[in-house]
């Protein structure tokens, strides 16, 4: 059986030792180790990962990439696929801390507006008692299980400390204005949990739509990640309508994204243009943003078929939806 070389080992160890790495960094490491840039040698990159995963499957690990749904960037990490006695050891967090984390995750994914966050105040008000009921032990006998003292006595300051630790370890992330979001590790680790708990998925990529755009039709449950939307509607012949109900998709979300990306610090050369009054510039920015220029011609035609006008974001932000069905 062809064995893994030191190069494969270095990739695995880098992720294990440093935690999840953003795509650029991981690609840089790959280039450094193999001498091949994944951008130019995509097939070889994929082959390497395939080979690694064949071996990792022996211990039920997987090297996978996933998107941070807040910025659309891809991160790579080694994740554990099976929950067993050994993996239960692999945490430095105590039982109440884990219950707290679980409560936060549930609150975030249950956000009906699919903004993918809760405020820090809400986080500190999470009650651990609710976590006891979702354990498997409670399913027998119909007697409500006793709430452990540690859960009842989990103080605000303990919650604050735990929050800080979770953010530091990248299970959660926090924004400057006090919002708590899922961290990269959670996206990597909770993929199957999202599916098992019926978190609504994105219509385009089928991954959980934790932070996603919603169809403006109240009765329609379709949600699509912003980055999936951009990709989908960037194709010339695709109509900008909801794939679920046919309602015209709110253009503002695409235009907003265009303006949002304007502020991105990472790509200064392409972003010098001031926010435009007309649609043509929006199309230009979209063209510059796409990393794979699949179809050169569409970019010329895009400006004419567009009717999108940048609108203020507040008009179309969804506040409440009754249709979100979550356990």
């Amino acid at each position, binding site marked *: 059986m062809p064995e893994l070389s*030191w190069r494969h080992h270095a990739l695995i160890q880098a992720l*294990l030792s440093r935690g999840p790495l953003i795509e650029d960094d991981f690609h840089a490491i790959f280039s450094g180790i193999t001498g091949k840039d994944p951008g130019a040698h995509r097939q070889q990159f994929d082959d390497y990962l395939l080979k690694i995963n064949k071996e990792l499957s*022996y211990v039920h690990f997987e090297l996978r990439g996933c998107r941070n749904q807040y910025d659309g960037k891809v991160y790579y990490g080694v994740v554990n696929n099976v929950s067993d006695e*050994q993996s239960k050891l692999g945490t430095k967090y105590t039982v109440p801390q884990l219950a707290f984390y679980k409560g936060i995750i549930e609150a975030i994914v249950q956000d009906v507006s699919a903004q993918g966050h809760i405020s820090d105040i809400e986080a500190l008000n999470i009650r651990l008692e609710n976590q006891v009921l979702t354990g498997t032990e409670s399913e027998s006998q119909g007697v409500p299980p006793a709430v452990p003292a540690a859960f009842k006595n989990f103080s605000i300051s303990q919650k604050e400390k735990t929050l800080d630790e979770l953010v530091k370890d990248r299970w959660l992330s926090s924004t400057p204005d006090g919002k708590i979001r899922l961290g990269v590790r959670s996206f990597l680790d909770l993929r199957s949990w999202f599916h098992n708990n019926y978190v609504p998925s994105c219509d385009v990529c089928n991954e959980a739509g934790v932070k996603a755009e919603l169809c403006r039709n109240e009765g329609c449950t379709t949600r699509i990640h912003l980055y999936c939307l951009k990709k989908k509607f960037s194709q010339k012949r695709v109509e900008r309508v909801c794939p679920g109900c046919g309602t015209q998709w709110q253009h503002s979300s695409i235009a907003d994204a265009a303006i949002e990306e304007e502020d991105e610090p990472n790509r200064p050369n392409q972003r010098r243009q001031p926010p435009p009054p007309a649609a043509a510039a929006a199309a230009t920015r979209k063209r510059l943003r796409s990393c794979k220029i699949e179809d050169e011609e569409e970019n010329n035609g895009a400006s004419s078929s567009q009717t999108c006008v940048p609108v203020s974001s507040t008009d179309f932000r969804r506040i409440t939806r009754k249709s979100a069905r979550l356990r």
Partner: protein
Amino acid sequence: MASSREDLSQFDISQEEKDKLVAEVIRYVLFKTHQNSGCPIKRDELTQIITKNYRQRALPAFVIHAAREKLSTIFGYEMKELQRSRPSSANQGRASQQIGSTTGIVGQLPADVYRKYVEDVNTAHLTGFTFVIISIVYLAGGKIAEDGLWHHMRRMGLYENEENHPVLGNIKQALEALVQQRYLQKDKANGHEGNTLFYELAERALDETINNKIKEYISQIVKNDGASPDID
């Protein structure tokens, strides 16, 4: 693969069962090492994984050996067995329970590759601290009195009462972590002033590869310094 089938037949377990056990051992080693921040694991803990469900006498050793091989081929990690030595001042009650062996995992990658791609810069300060403390004890002959060690640490700005050092946090805890990770061990000895606490190099620092590296680095530093080291 014929030989492994023979080996298995002597144990009367299937390939799948054996693979399952090996995977459990590997996972245990990886998760536990993460949980206790690199402290070595007692061999008993590993044998327990096997003896929990299987009675065959030689099976644990076989599985652990297979796990060691897999850790190497899949991850490039070396699982080293560290012989735990009896503390020099034999404290009879404790010593008999402590004798045994512990295992720790180290990487097999060339040092430059490790440094460039694998090393977590966020924990580099701990490695530096570990190296410095081990060097002090080494230069003191492998054993140093608690007071002596703190004397040297104070010279570097590390104080016993410091709980919020900007890099190391609680200094006492940082030192204690070295004991837990089996770089150092603590001993009491009856000195003329009563009981004194001594720090000695423990199995992880005495392991040949690491020991040689330490000697190498120290001699480099001493050579570069020019002036003779000041050991009081």
